[in-house]
């Protein structure tokens, strides 16, 4: 199932296509609900789970209040341990810096572990266009890379692909036997294939889960060991991090690491949690610190909490809309509730459908390890869209009309009577015509003869409060 053309169709259109294949939508929904259940079971084993969330939110809030100072401290300590720290204002600058480092070392092949930031910056195509091969080494990322499509989930990049499809892909690209669909066998094939890439890589690239100000170190978490395979073999390691990744002290890591894997996959911890302080012997470690719009989001009091995200994906797994519409419906590097927020902050017009791709059920807030008030912020983005007149004119007009009708009892009652009359009298063919979106798959409510207040007046007299 490919991403299709990368044009902006908006969430409702793509979601409708995804949901149209009900069997598949249910399969996707079940897969992610399963992860949500695993998260619940893992969290239940942590007696101080809710207090951990409070602590994580508080650490993030505290860090935001001194973000520049903590980044400077991180830089000082990183340099003292032999790392080189670069600063990139935007995606273009990030890509230039990375390219300069790699080409300066004659790098032809990079082994890259998962980094949503590098996706955001469009790093892969940038490097490929300049003759540097980028091998995404996380299995899910490699699958989508071979398929020529973006990841559909930040933790499970290939969650939208069935094993048979991955088998076909591997048959075409890796030469595995046709019809092979067993996950274990496919993973083994990927192990062999990527082993060769790891062994021949000239450099390793990673993201950064956490950057510790106190020690100048970066922490990278994986289950597969691909970040470590990529960075302990070649002598050059380039790590990209957003400015929001810094945490004050090593002790703070305990809070985040106790929350991260449990929230993401239901495991107590990722297999590898590697703490890089300075380069490998005789090598170089470059950390590229990236803004790319984050300082603007930080400045917005109603949006800055979305920057505290630790990229666990729990909000996606619990979101009943995400599960039934798939990551591609969001048309943004990070999908789901947090993606909708980040996208809407970055470019409200381009992503105008995303704040509405939600029923505001609030489940995401409750699973977020750092207590981002996701559903509240989504509502605020809706308000911002209305205020900026980004919503369609027809919508604005009908809402103004509705507001006027509702502001006066007489008009409200008249409108209600007309509505009930139409529901009673209109022939079904007209009532359920193409104009009636509600009526495509649902019956309209049965119109009562009287409204509540008409009955009240009739039976209780004209009793006003």
């Amino acid at each position, binding site marked *: 199932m490919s991403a299709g053309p990368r044009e902006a169709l908006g969430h409702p259109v793509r979601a409708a296509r995804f949901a149209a294949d009900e069997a598949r939508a249910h399969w996707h929904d079940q897969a992610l609900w399963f*992860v949500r259940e695993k998260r619940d079971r893992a969290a239940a084993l*942590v*007696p*101080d789970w809710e207090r951990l969330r409070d602590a994580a939110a*508080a*650490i993030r*809030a*505290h860090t*935001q*209040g*001194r973000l*520049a100072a903590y*980044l*400077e401290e991180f830089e000082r300590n990183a340099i003292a*341990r032999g790392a080189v720290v670069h*600063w*990139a*204002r935007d995606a273009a600058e990030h890509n230039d810096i990375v390219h300069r480092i790699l080409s300066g070392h004659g790098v032809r092949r990079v082994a890259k572990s998962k980094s949503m930031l590098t996706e955001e910056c469009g790093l892969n195509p940038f490097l490929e266009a300049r003759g540097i091969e980028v091998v995404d080494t*996380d*299995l*899910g990322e490699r699958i989508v890379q071979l398929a020529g499509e973006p990841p559909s989930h930040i933790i499970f*990049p*290939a*969650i939208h692909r*069935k*094993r048979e499809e*991955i088998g076909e892909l591997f048959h075409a690209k890796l030469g595995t036997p046709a019809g092979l669909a067993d*996950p274990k066998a496919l*993973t083994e094939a*990927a*192990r062999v294939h*990527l*082993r060769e890439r790891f062994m021949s890589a000239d450099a390793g690239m990673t993201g950064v889960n956490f950057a510790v100000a106190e*020690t100048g*170190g970066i922490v990278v978490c994986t*289950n597969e*060991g691909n970040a*470590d395979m990529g960075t*302990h073999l070649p002598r050059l390691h380039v790590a990209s991090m957003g400015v929001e990744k810094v945490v004050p002290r090593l*002790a*703070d890591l*305990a809070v985040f*690491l*106790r929350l991260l894997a449990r929230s993401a996959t239901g*495991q*107590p*911890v990722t*297999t*590898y949690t*590697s703490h890089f302080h*300075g*380069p*490998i*012997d005789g090598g170089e470690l470059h950390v590229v*610190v990236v803004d790319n719009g984050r*300082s*603007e989001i*930080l*400045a917005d*009091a109603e949006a800055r909490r979305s920057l505290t995200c630790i990229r666990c994906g729990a909000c996606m797994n619990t979101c009943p809309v995400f599960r039934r519409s798939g990551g591609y419906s969001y048309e943004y590097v990070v999908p789901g509730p947090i993606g909708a927020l980040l996208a809407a902050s970055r470019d409200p017009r381009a992503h105008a459908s995303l704040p509405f791709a939600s029923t505001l059920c609030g489940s995401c807030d409750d699973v977020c390890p750092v207590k981002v008030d996701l559903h509240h912020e989504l509502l605020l983005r809706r308000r911002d869209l209305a205020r900026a007149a980004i919503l369609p004119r027809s919508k604005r007009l009908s809402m103004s009309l509705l507001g006027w009708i509702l502001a006066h009892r007489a008009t409200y009652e008249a409108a209600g009577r007309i509505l009930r009359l139409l529901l009673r009298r209109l022939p079904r063919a007209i009532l359920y015509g193409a104009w009636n979106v509600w009526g495509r798959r649902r019956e309209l409510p049965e119109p009562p003869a009287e409204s509540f207040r008409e009955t009240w007046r009739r039976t209780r007299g004209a009793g006003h409060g």
Partner: protein
Amino acid sequence: MDSRRAILDALRRAQPPESPAPDLSALGAPLPDPAARVGEAVAAVGGTLVRVPEAAALAAEVAALASRLGAVRVASAVPGVPGNVSLDDLPDPHALEGIGLAVLAGAFAVAENGAVWVPAAGLRHRGVFVVAEHLALVVPAAEVVSDLHEAYRRIAFPGAGFGTFVAGPSKTADIEQALVIGAHGPRSCTVFLVG
């Protein structure tokens, strides 16, 4: 203006009012006997815990493990546990390829999640923990902490260095959520709790 200055200035202007860092001292799940619980934690992450009450028996246990795993090339960084690959003599980390079993020292284990802290100090090629086909970690039985809060009280990076938490064998669930043990890193992880 250079990017560093521009970014830091932009962040300073954007920062919210300061709020205090929280007190973390009340967090954690301290256990009366963490060593008693670490076995199930290691199993929960796909590893195997083996108790070796007599330190002298360790070498034989490791040899038995290597034999069971069919590991021909064994590299040991643990004194008293012999191997047939000398890690220090390998010219380049790429030469780690093909090591059947790597035996490394773990500083301590964590009961809440089955992880072992493996500092790289003393290892010439720190990547051995991930390149080897199978991994064995040797942890003193007295060095089991309850949770990560306790763990980080024992971790410091006064200078350059590397350390990693290893929790079981490498794994992935990227294909239809089916858990597969042995992704890119070691296919198995045995933790020897010694003493």
